[in-house]
């Protein structure tokens, strides 16, 4: 995973109403050693700018589930995050293989995770439902042979 900062974030983590913190994380397929670091980074920033603990937790959980799905199920991809004063907007895009039946994949308990992945505690088939539950707006689109796109928007109350 590598990370880039962009946008107009000045590094002092005090946002005025026009500021946005933009983050980009590159997620490598099968890389379990840095798995979760993107989400941890997001959570740290949210805590620093004073987003409510309960909201930061929801965002962190949604981001982690998305991050892990790219690492476990895809050929790799990236996560873009925009932290605004009133919301966090997360877009995750991977390079395939895509999901043939998105409706089925969204069902709690559905998982194609192989045994060695299940041995690590993944594969409950709850990642996508968790993302939907944690988000105020959630969308997923997928094309077999192309990739999967997920968008999560969480409002900061």
């Amino acid at each position, binding site marked *: 995973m590598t990370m880039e900062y962009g946008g107009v974030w000045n590094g002092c983590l005090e946002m005025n109403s026009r500021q946005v913190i933009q983050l980009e994380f590159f997620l490598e397929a099968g890389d*379990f050693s840095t798995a979760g670091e993107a*989400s941890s980074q997001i*959570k740290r920033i949210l805590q620093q700018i004073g987003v409510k603990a309960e909201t930061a*937790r929801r965002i*962190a*959980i949604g981001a982690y589930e998305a991050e892990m799905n790219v690492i476990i199920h895809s050929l790799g991809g990236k996560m873009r995050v925009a932290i605004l004063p009133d919301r966090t907007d997360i877009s995750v895009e991977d390079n395939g293989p895509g999901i043939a039946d998105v409706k089925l994949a969204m069902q709690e308990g559905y998982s194609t995770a192989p045994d060695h992945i299940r041995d*690590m*505690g993944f594969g*409950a088939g*709850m990642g996508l439902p968790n993302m939907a539950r944690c988000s105020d707006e959630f969308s997923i689109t997928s094309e077999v042979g192309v990739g999967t796109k997920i968008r999560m928007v969480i409002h900061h109350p």
Partner: protein
Amino acid sequence: MTVGEIIEQVSLTVMAATAGLDKEVKQGYVSDLLSNVMAFAGADSVWVTMQGHQNIVAVASLAGLSAVIIAGGAKPEDETIAKAKQEGVVLLATPLPSFEVAGQLYRLGIRGA
């Protein structure tokens, strides 16, 4: 009840505790499935699991859990311990099976999430 008080009452080996011994434990949860923990453990839970893989540290930290107890004599990997120290996640271990740990926590007044 704080994490430190739980360590005093239940026989647990401290694997990592660079921070968080004074954290309040509001409830408990037992599961070996990470997404299931993310969904149901609730903030400030003590989590009992047989997973020793390093991913448990990210789960505990992101979900805001108070402590992780690795039960049943399962061995946390070296990376798990290193990461827990780095992230300030309290990692505890015991040969007691998960059921036994949950029972002892319940007797101390901790209830399910």
